[in-house]
Protein backbone atom coordinates (compact mmCIF):
# COMPACT_ATOMS: atom_id res chain seq x y z
CA UNK A 1 0.00 0.00 0.00
CA UNK A 2 1.35 3.42 -0.94
CA UNK A 3 2.04 5.74 2.02
CA UNK A 4 -0.14 8.86 2.15
CA UNK A 5 2.89 11.12 2.58
CA UNK A 6 6.64 10.57 2.84
CA UNK A 7 8.82 12.95 4.87
CA UNK A 8 12.31 13.37 3.38
CA UNK A 9 14.85 14.73 5.88
CA UNK A 10 18.24 15.51 4.35
CA UNK A 11 20.43 18.61 4.20
CA UNK A 12 21.36 17.92 0.57
CA UNK A 13 19.24 19.66 -2.09
CA UNK A 14 20.62 17.19 -4.59
CA UNK A 15 19.14 14.28 -2.62
CA UNK A 16 15.77 16.00 -2.32
CA UNK A 17 15.72 16.38 -6.09
CA UNK A 18 16.75 12.73 -6.44
CA UNK A 19 13.90 11.57 -4.19
CA UNK A 20 11.44 13.69 -6.19
CA UNK A 21 12.53 11.87 -9.33
CA UNK A 22 12.68 8.44 -7.79
CA UNK A 23 9.48 8.56 -5.76
CA UNK A 24 7.19 10.08 -8.36
CA UNK A 25 3.65 9.39 -7.26
CA UNK A 26 4.55 9.52 -3.58
CA UNK A 27 3.48 12.85 -2.05
CA UNK A 28 6.69 14.17 -0.46
CA UNK A 29 7.19 16.60 2.42
CA UNK A 30 10.69 18.11 2.61
CA UNK A 31 12.85 19.09 5.57
CA UNK A 32 16.55 19.98 5.67
CA UNK A 33 17.35 19.22 9.31
CA UNK A 34 15.84 17.47 12.32
CA UNK A 35 14.16 20.50 13.83
CA UNK A 36 12.46 21.44 10.60
CA UNK A 37 11.38 17.81 10.24
CA UNK A 38 9.65 17.90 13.64
CA UNK A 39 7.76 21.00 12.51
CA UNK A 40 6.72 19.25 9.28
CA UNK A 41 5.53 16.22 11.27
CA UNK A 42 3.36 18.46 13.42
CA UNK A 43 1.90 20.12 10.30
CA UNK A 44 1.28 16.96 8.27
CA UNK A 45 -0.56 14.41 10.39
CA UNK A 46 -0.81 11.97 7.48
CA UNK A 47 2.93 11.29 7.09
CA UNK A 48 3.35 7.52 6.98
CA UNK A 49 7.05 7.08 6.21
CA UNK A 50 10.24 9.01 6.99
CA UNK A 51 13.48 8.89 4.95
CA UNK A 52 16.20 10.24 7.21
CA UNK A 53 19.80 11.36 6.77
CA UNK A 54 22.10 11.32 9.81
CA UNK A 55 24.61 14.14 9.30
CA UNK A 56 22.62 17.36 9.37
CA UNK A 57 22.98 20.78 10.98
CA UNK A 58 20.96 21.97 14.02
CA UNK A 59 19.47 18.56 14.87
CA UNK A 60 21.06 15.43 13.44
CA UNK A 61 19.23 12.32 12.30
CA UNK A 62 19.71 10.27 15.46
CA UNK A 63 18.48 13.12 17.68
CA UNK A 64 15.45 13.49 15.45
CA UNK A 65 14.83 9.74 15.51
CA UNK A 66 14.94 9.70 19.32
CA UNK A 67 12.48 12.59 19.42
CA UNK A 68 10.13 10.80 17.00
CA UNK A 69 10.23 7.51 18.90
CA UNK A 70 9.58 9.31 22.20
CA UNK A 71 6.49 11.00 20.77
CA UNK A 72 3.36 8.86 21.18
CA UNK A 73 1.77 10.27 18.04
CA UNK A 74 4.79 9.78 15.74
CA UNK A 75 6.43 6.69 17.23
CA UNK A 76 4.51 4.31 14.94
CA UNK A 77 5.87 5.93 11.72
CA UNK A 78 8.57 3.73 10.14
CA UNK A 79 11.89 5.50 9.63
CA UNK A 80 14.44 4.54 6.97
CA UNK A 81 17.92 5.87 7.69
CA UNK A 82 19.74 6.79 4.46
CA UNK A 83 23.30 7.81 5.17
CA UNK A 84 26.95 7.64 4.24
CA UNK A 85 27.74 6.33 7.74
CA UNK A 86 28.19 2.73 6.73
CA UNK A 87 29.95 0.83 9.51
CA UNK A 88 28.24 -1.98 11.43
CA UNK A 89 28.32 0.18 14.57
CA UNK A 90 26.53 2.98 12.75
CA UNK A 91 23.90 0.58 11.47
CA UNK A 92 23.39 -0.96 14.89
CA UNK A 93 23.11 2.47 16.51
CA UNK A 94 20.45 3.47 14.01
CA UNK A 95 18.46 0.28 14.36
CA UNK A 96 18.65 0.44 18.17
CA UNK A 97 17.33 3.99 18.03
CA UNK A 98 14.23 2.59 16.35
CA UNK A 99 14.87 2.78 12.60
CA UNK A 100 12.96 0.25 10.51
CA UNK A 101 15.70 -0.02 7.87
CA UNK A 102 19.18 1.27 7.08
CA UNK A 103 20.32 2.17 3.55
CA UNK A 104 23.87 3.29 2.74
CA UNK A 105 24.63 6.10 0.29
CA UNK A 106 25.21 5.89 -2.58
CA UNK A 107 22.23 3.60 -3.00
CA UNK A 108 20.54 1.96 -5.96
CA UNK A 109 16.96 2.99 -6.71
CA UNK A 110 15.65 -0.56 -6.59
CA UNK A 111 17.30 -1.10 -3.22
CA UNK A 112 15.47 1.85 -1.65
CA UNK A 113 12.19 1.11 -3.44
CA UNK A 114 12.41 -2.48 -2.20
CA UNK A 115 12.78 -1.26 1.38
CA UNK A 116 9.88 1.19 1.00
CA UNK A 117 7.64 -1.47 -0.54
CA UNK A 118 8.51 -3.92 2.23
CA UNK A 119 7.79 -1.40 4.97
CA UNK A 120 4.58 -0.04 3.51
CA UNK A 121 3.26 -3.54 2.73
CA UNK A 122 3.91 -4.75 6.27
CA UNK A 123 0.94 -4.55 8.70
CA UNK A 124 3.34 -3.22 11.33
CA UNK A 125 4.00 -0.26 9.09
Amino acid at each position, binding site marked *: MKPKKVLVVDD*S*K*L*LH*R*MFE*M*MLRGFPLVHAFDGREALDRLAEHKDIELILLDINMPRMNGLEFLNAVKAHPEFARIPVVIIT*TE*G*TEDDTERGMQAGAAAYV*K*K*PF*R*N*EELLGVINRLTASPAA
Partner: protein
Amino acid sequence: MAAREQLPPRPGSALDELRAALDRAAALAREIESRPEGAGELKSRLADVESDREELSTKLAEYEHQVQRLMNLYVATYQLHATLDPGEVQATIAEIAINLLGAERFVLLFWRTSADGTRSGDCEIAFAQGMEEDQSGLYLNSAYVGGDSVVDATLADGVLRIGPFDGSPALACVPLTVQGATVGALVILKLFDHKEMLRAEDRDLLDLIAAHAASALFAARDYSVTDRKLKTLESLVALVRRQ
Protein backbone atom coordinates in the same frame (compact mmCIF):
# COMPACT_ATOMS: atom_id res chain seq x y z
CA MET B 1 -40.60 -53.92 -26.71
CA ALA B 2 -38.41 -51.40 -25.24
CA ALA B 3 -35.36 -53.63 -25.95
CA ARG B 4 -36.37 -53.99 -29.56
CA GLU B 5 -36.57 -50.25 -29.96
CA GLN B 6 -32.99 -50.05 -28.73
CA LEU B 7 -31.70 -52.38 -31.43
CA PRO B 8 -29.77 -50.85 -34.31
CA PRO B 9 -31.95 -49.98 -37.29
CA ARG B 10 -30.19 -52.57 -39.46
CA PRO B 11 -27.95 -55.59 -38.64
CA GLY B 12 -24.81 -54.14 -40.25
CA SER B 13 -25.00 -50.94 -38.28
CA ALA B 14 -24.05 -52.71 -35.04
CA LEU B 15 -20.82 -53.85 -36.63
CA ASP B 16 -20.25 -50.38 -37.99
CA GLU B 17 -20.73 -48.95 -34.54
CA LEU B 18 -18.41 -51.56 -33.08
CA ARG B 19 -15.81 -50.75 -35.73
CA ALA B 20 -16.19 -47.05 -35.01
CA ALA B 21 -15.84 -47.73 -31.31
CA LEU B 22 -12.67 -49.73 -31.96
CA ASP B 23 -11.34 -46.96 -34.15
CA ARG B 24 -11.99 -44.44 -31.38
CA ALA B 25 -10.29 -46.76 -28.89
CA ALA B 26 -7.29 -47.07 -31.20
CA ALA B 27 -7.15 -43.33 -31.60
CA LEU B 28 -7.34 -42.87 -27.84
CA ALA B 29 -4.59 -45.44 -27.37
CA ARG B 30 -2.43 -43.60 -29.86
CA GLU B 31 -3.17 -40.37 -28.05
CA ILE B 32 -2.26 -41.94 -24.72
CA GLU B 33 0.91 -43.34 -26.25
CA SER B 34 1.76 -39.94 -27.60
CA ARG B 35 1.28 -38.25 -24.22
CA PRO B 36 4.87 -38.62 -23.06
CA GLU B 37 5.89 -36.81 -26.22
CA GLY B 38 3.28 -34.14 -25.46
CA ALA B 39 4.68 -33.76 -21.99
CA GLY B 40 8.11 -33.46 -23.53
CA GLU B 41 6.86 -30.74 -25.80
CA LEU B 42 5.28 -28.95 -22.87
CA LYS B 43 8.52 -29.24 -20.95
CA SER B 44 10.39 -27.82 -23.91
CA ARG B 45 7.96 -24.92 -24.15
CA LEU B 46 8.25 -24.37 -20.41
CA ALA B 47 12.03 -24.24 -20.74
CA ASP B 48 11.64 -21.67 -23.53
CA VAL B 49 9.34 -19.58 -21.35
CA GLU B 50 11.79 -19.84 -18.45
CA SER B 51 14.62 -18.75 -20.73
CA ASP B 52 12.54 -15.80 -22.02
CA ARG B 53 11.69 -14.85 -18.45
CA GLU B 54 15.36 -14.86 -17.48
CA GLU B 55 16.25 -12.80 -20.53
CA LEU B 56 13.50 -10.30 -19.72
CA SER B 57 14.63 -10.21 -16.12
CA THR B 58 18.20 -9.42 -17.23
CA LYS B 59 16.92 -6.73 -19.60
CA LEU B 60 14.78 -5.24 -16.83
CA ALA B 61 17.82 -5.09 -14.54
CA GLU B 62 19.81 -3.38 -17.35
CA TYR B 63 16.92 -1.00 -17.94
CA GLU B 64 16.74 -0.11 -14.23
CA HIS B 65 20.50 0.37 -14.26
CA GLN B 66 20.25 2.78 -17.22
CA VAL B 67 17.37 4.64 -15.55
CA GLN B 68 19.50 5.08 -12.44
CA ARG B 69 22.45 6.36 -14.51
CA LEU B 70 20.28 8.84 -16.39
CA MET B 71 18.54 9.95 -13.22
CA ASN B 72 21.88 10.59 -11.50
CA LEU B 73 23.11 12.57 -14.51
CA TYR B 74 19.89 14.57 -14.79
CA VAL B 75 19.74 15.41 -11.10
CA ALA B 76 23.43 16.35 -10.98
CA THR B 77 23.18 18.59 -14.06
CA TYR B 78 19.93 20.16 -12.88
CA GLN B 79 21.30 20.94 -9.45
CA LEU B 80 24.63 22.30 -10.75
CA HIS B 81 22.81 24.85 -12.91
CA ALA B 82 19.91 25.51 -10.53
CA THR B 83 21.61 28.34 -8.69
CA LEU B 84 23.78 31.40 -9.27
CA ASP B 85 25.25 31.29 -5.79
CA PRO B 86 28.92 30.15 -6.02
CA GLY B 87 28.74 28.63 -2.54
CA GLU B 88 25.73 26.53 -3.51
CA VAL B 89 27.37 25.33 -6.75
CA GLN B 90 30.42 24.31 -4.74
CA ALA B 91 28.17 22.53 -2.24
CA THR B 92 26.45 20.71 -5.11
CA ILE B 93 29.79 19.48 -6.46
CA ALA B 94 30.56 18.16 -2.97
CA GLU B 95 27.10 16.56 -2.71
CA ILE B 96 27.59 14.79 -6.04
CA ALA B 97 30.96 13.48 -4.85
CA ILE B 98 29.58 12.30 -1.50
CA ASN B 99 26.06 11.13 -2.27
CA LEU B 100 26.34 9.86 -5.84
CA LEU B 101 29.98 8.78 -6.10
CA GLY B 102 30.52 7.71 -2.48
CA ALA B 103 33.64 9.84 -1.95
CA GLU B 104 34.71 10.17 1.68
CA ARG B 105 37.85 12.25 1.12
CA PHE B 106 38.32 14.68 -1.77
CA VAL B 107 39.53 18.15 -2.69
CA LEU B 108 38.31 20.66 -5.22
CA LEU B 109 41.25 22.55 -6.70
CA PHE B 110 41.29 25.74 -8.76
CA TRP B 111 44.25 27.54 -10.27
CA ARG B 112 44.82 30.84 -8.53
CA THR B 113 44.41 33.73 -10.94
CA SER B 114 45.49 37.34 -10.76
CA ALA B 115 43.20 40.28 -11.42
CA ASP B 116 43.87 40.13 -15.18
CA GLY B 117 42.84 36.46 -15.26
CA THR B 118 46.29 34.91 -15.68
CA ARG B 119 47.39 31.97 -13.52
CA SER B 120 49.45 32.96 -10.51
CA GLY B 121 51.23 29.63 -10.12
CA ASP B 122 49.56 27.36 -7.61
CA CYS B 123 46.26 25.65 -7.04
CA GLU B 124 44.02 26.67 -4.15
CA ILE B 125 41.75 24.24 -2.36
CA ALA B 126 38.27 25.63 -2.91
CA PHE B 127 36.58 22.83 -0.99
CA ALA B 128 37.88 19.86 0.99
CA GLN B 129 36.13 16.95 2.63
CA GLY B 130 37.65 14.50 5.11
CA MET B 131 41.16 15.95 4.67
CA GLU B 132 41.83 16.01 8.44
CA GLU B 133 43.14 12.45 8.10
CA ASP B 134 45.19 13.06 4.97
CA GLN B 135 48.82 12.10 5.50
CA SER B 136 50.12 12.80 2.01
CA GLY B 137 51.45 16.28 2.75
CA LEU B 138 50.37 17.36 -0.72
CA TYR B 139 47.54 19.58 0.46
CA LEU B 140 48.71 22.23 2.90
CA ASN B 141 47.53 25.70 3.92
CA SER B 142 44.52 25.68 1.60
CA ALA B 143 46.68 24.89 -1.42
CA TYR B 144 47.88 21.93 -3.43
CA VAL B 145 51.67 22.04 -3.17
CA GLY B 146 52.24 19.86 -6.24
CA GLY B 147 54.09 16.59 -6.61
CA ASP B 148 51.28 14.10 -7.24
CA SER B 149 52.04 12.90 -10.76
CA VAL B 150 48.38 12.10 -11.53
CA VAL B 151 47.02 15.44 -10.32
CA ASP B 152 49.85 17.36 -12.02
CA ALA B 153 49.19 15.54 -15.29
CA THR B 154 45.44 16.20 -15.17
CA LEU B 155 45.95 19.86 -14.33
CA ALA B 156 48.33 20.09 -17.29
CA ASP B 157 46.49 18.14 -20.00
CA GLY B 158 42.85 18.18 -18.81
CA VAL B 159 42.41 14.41 -19.12
CA LEU B 160 40.15 12.50 -16.71
CA ARG B 161 42.11 9.81 -14.88
CA ILE B 162 40.57 6.96 -12.91
CA GLY B 163 42.83 4.82 -10.70
CA PRO B 164 43.97 3.42 -8.45
CA PHE B 165 47.47 4.49 -9.47
CA ASP B 166 50.94 3.48 -8.39
CA GLY B 167 52.66 6.29 -6.52
CA SER B 168 49.57 8.48 -6.11
CA PRO B 169 46.96 8.60 -3.35
CA ALA B 170 44.34 9.77 -5.88
CA LEU B 171 41.58 7.33 -6.87
CA ALA B 172 40.33 9.65 -9.57
CA CYS B 173 41.35 13.04 -10.87
CA VAL B 174 38.67 14.95 -12.74
CA PRO B 175 39.68 18.00 -14.76
CA LEU B 176 37.42 21.03 -14.42
CA THR B 177 37.21 22.77 -17.75
CA VAL B 178 35.70 25.98 -19.02
CA GLN B 179 35.70 26.58 -22.78
CA GLY B 180 38.37 23.95 -23.25
CA ALA B 181 40.74 25.37 -20.63
CA THR B 182 41.51 23.40 -17.46
CA VAL B 183 40.83 25.65 -14.51
CA GLY B 184 41.14 23.08 -11.74
CA ALA B 185 40.46 19.51 -10.71
CA LEU B 186 38.39 17.38 -8.40
CA VAL B 187 40.68 14.87 -6.72
CA ILE B 188 39.00 11.88 -5.08
CA LEU B 189 41.32 10.39 -2.48
CA LYS B 190 39.15 7.87 -0.62
CA LEU B 191 35.77 6.20 -1.01
CA PHE B 192 33.48 5.15 1.82
CA ASP B 193 34.35 1.70 3.14
CA HIS B 194 31.03 0.30 1.91
CA LYS B 195 31.85 1.45 -1.64
CA GLU B 196 34.73 -0.73 -2.77
CA MET B 197 35.61 0.98 -6.05
CA LEU B 198 34.42 3.42 -8.69
CA ARG B 199 32.15 1.59 -11.12
CA ALA B 200 31.73 2.00 -14.84
CA GLU B 201 28.60 4.13 -14.40
CA ASP B 202 30.51 6.50 -12.11
CA ARG B 203 32.57 7.53 -15.12
CA ASP B 204 29.48 9.25 -16.58
CA LEU B 205 29.19 11.36 -13.47
CA LEU B 206 32.91 12.16 -13.48
CA ASP B 207 32.63 13.21 -17.14
CA LEU B 208 29.64 15.37 -16.24
CA ILE B 209 31.55 17.04 -13.42
CA ALA B 210 34.45 17.68 -15.81
CA ALA B 211 32.16 19.33 -18.33
CA HIS B 212 29.67 21.18 -16.13
CA ALA B 213 31.04 21.85 -12.64
CA ALA B 214 33.56 24.53 -13.51
CA SER B 215 31.31 26.33 -15.99
CA ALA B 216 28.47 26.37 -13.44
CA LEU B 217 30.81 27.68 -10.76
CA PHE B 218 32.37 30.32 -13.03
CA ALA B 219 28.96 31.48 -14.23
CA ALA B 220 27.84 31.82 -10.63
CA ARG B 221 31.04 33.69 -9.67
CA ASP B 222 30.68 36.06 -12.63
CA TYR B 223 27.05 36.69 -11.76
CA SER B 224 27.99 37.27 -8.14
CA VAL B 225 30.70 39.80 -9.07
CA THR B 226 28.44 41.56 -11.57
CA ASP B 227 25.57 41.66 -9.10
CA ARG B 228 27.84 43.13 -6.43
CA LYS B 229 29.09 45.81 -8.85
CA LEU B 230 25.54 46.59 -9.92
CA LYS B 231 24.41 46.99 -6.33
CA THR B 232 27.39 49.25 -5.60
CA LEU B 233 26.56 51.41 -8.63
CA GLU B 234 22.87 51.54 -7.67
CA SER B 235 23.70 52.68 -4.15
CA LEU B 236 26.08 55.30 -5.57
CA VAL B 237 23.40 56.58 -7.95
CA ALA B 238 20.89 56.68 -5.09
CA LEU B 239 23.41 58.63 -2.98
CA VAL B 240 24.06 61.15 -5.79
CA ARG B 241 20.31 61.63 -6.33
CA ARG B 242 19.76 62.32 -2.63
CA GLN B 243 22.46 65.03 -2.74
